[in-house]
């Protein structure tokens, strides 16, 4: 008897929940109408192709089977094996080179962008005569399209005729010989520097906005207590900017791991190979997928990269969880 009532209570509770859910949905008809177009767009352009893309990584998909697309022969994890473990495959060595380059590239770019962004933001947050002009000039690289950035720096890095070697060697005599920038080990620097140049302004604006939100009294109080500038920066500025730094760190990490435009345009304007020292994951995968039509292994490599990114996001979330501003 008792059990029965308990059970029926449960059922009543469940139907009640279902009913409230139904009425909630009914009440929010307007809200659903507003999100519907976005949901349709995301399903068609993001989610269906993404699932197909993941499925592609289990297929033997190359120039011969391209017409069959999703009906190409199923090979299980073979593509992953080729990309990650098969010591005889050139695909693997290329992928691992690109992976190493991308990790160095993403970490260094992110750090340098934060450091330069912070320095610039602090410098233009002072009061001085040409402040407006200085801010505007510091923002200009962000306006240059990234494919132009790649083209322009590829031109400036030229070994014999490029302006950078001309300044360093011919005019200032800092280096004895003209180094090769876009071939050999220097390549990584040749792609890091333009990316930093292009990405710093955005981070600078964000940090500047954060700096302007810090009340002046905090610094005055610290000054009365005899704090030096370094101490003020460490104990007031940095902790208050932590949320902004956190968001920019994540955004930068994702953007730079998936970085493509600058590097693709710098080497042969989209047709070339950046070489062992400058190849990034996205240029590597793009070349293998659309250059020599190894689409199955390309998809497998993409999935591996995506898993790496998701891991980074998870770690980021653990570290900065408390800094995320919760609204409402």
């Amino acid at each position, binding site marked *: 008897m008792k059990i029965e009532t308990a059970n029926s209570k449960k059922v009543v509770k469940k139907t009640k929940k279902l009913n409230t859910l139904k009425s*909630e949905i009914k009440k*929010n008809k307007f*809200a659903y109408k*507003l*999100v519907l177009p*976005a*949901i349709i*767009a*995301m399903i068609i*352009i*993001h*989610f*269906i192709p993404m699932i*197909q*893309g*993941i499925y592609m990584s289990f297929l033997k998909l190359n120039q011969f089977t391209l017409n069959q697309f999703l009906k190409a022969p199923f090979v299980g994890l073979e593509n992953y094996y080729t990309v990650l473990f098969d010591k005889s495959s050139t695909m693997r060595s290329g992928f691992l080179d690109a992976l190493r380059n991308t990790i160095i590239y993403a970490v260094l770019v992110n750090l340098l962008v934060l450091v330069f962004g912070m*320095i*610039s933001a602090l*410098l233009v947050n002072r009061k001085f005569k040409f402040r407006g002009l*200085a801010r*505007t*000039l*510091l923002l*200009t*690289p962000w*306006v*240059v*399209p*990234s*494919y*132009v950035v790649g083209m*322009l720096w590829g*031109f400036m890095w030229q070994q014999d005729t490029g*302006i950078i070697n001309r300044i360093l060697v*011919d005019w200032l005599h800092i280096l004895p010989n003209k180094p090769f920038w876009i071939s050999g080990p220097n390549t990584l620097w040749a792609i890091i520097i333009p990316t930093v140049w292009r990405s*710093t302004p955005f981070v600078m*604006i*964000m940090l500047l*906005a954060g700096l302007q939100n810090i009340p002046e009294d905090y610094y005055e109080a610290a000054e009365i207590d005899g704090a030096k500038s370094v101490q003020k920066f460490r104990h007031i500025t940095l902790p208050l900017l932590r*949320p902004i730094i956190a968001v920019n760190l994540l955004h930068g990490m*994702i953007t730079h791991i*998936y970085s*493509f435009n600058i590097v*693709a*345009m710098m080497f042969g304007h*989209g*047709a070339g190979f950046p070489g062992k020292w400058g190849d990034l994951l*996205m240029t590597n995968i*793009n070349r293998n*997928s*659309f250059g020599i039509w190894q689409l199955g292994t*390309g*998809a497998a490599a*993409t999935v591996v*990269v*995506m898993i790496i*990114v*998701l891991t980074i996001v998870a770690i980021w979330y653990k570290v900065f969880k408390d800094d995320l*501003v919760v*609204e409402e």
Partner: protein
Amino acid sequence: MKKSYMANLRRKKKIQDIAANILLFIIVIFTVFPIVWMFISSLMTQNDITAGKLTDITHWENYIEMWQNINFFKYFKNSLIICSITTIIALCIATFAGYSIARFRFPGAGLFGTAVLSTQMIPGIMFLLPLFMMFTKIQKSIGISIVNTYHGIIITYSAFFIPFSIWILRGFFASIPKELEEAAQIDGCSPFGAFFRIILPLSSTGIIATGIYIFLMAWDELLFAWVLATTPDVATIPVGIRLYVGNYQNRYDLLMAAGVVSTIPILIMFFSLQKKFISGITAGAVKG
């Protein structure tokens, strides 16, 4: 004793200020130099560039040559059309959705928010080929061509930039007090009317900032353009440059002229709306 201490302090501050100004000056030079150099070399002849002769920067005919010989006008026009329409479509859809998740606690709102964010973690190359195959399949079975058309690339770009825009806009709408719409609805406005008459004007800064952002991203896109818009009729600027480089290898004078021209529309747009854009983009991002 105290006086000299204060004087010392003031002198120290002055020296610090001068040092900061010098540092800022150096950073500004490094920042601006590549752009200036792009402009200068676009006005040189190819021979002067290779010889390193910097005295003759009057060759405006490079721009005419680029405009006429390599069809640059066509690519430029394509980019303008595609990016403008993309901005309008993506902005409309994202505004509706952003408002919806900022205001209503409907079942599934959390899931929708997560889905929006998760799209940002998918590399574009992952769905490039499936998308291309889907488009060719539609073309074969229904007969509507999508690859190498304006609408194909516009649909793709619009959908592509919606999630990020939703996230920025959500922040703006959340910062507007709810009481305003409630008052409007008491006065007899429909929910849509309240949204249209009260909320949209109040969040115009944020909407304009987001619009500029979408336009910049679309102008900058080349991975999808290289696959979905390869014929000269629809090719955007980066595709055009790639098509062109094959024929005119190493004509850096012309390439730099092309670079300058592709930067100018964004430059104008950005600096005419700079204040609105910066206050908009930082407000949305600092909060979110």
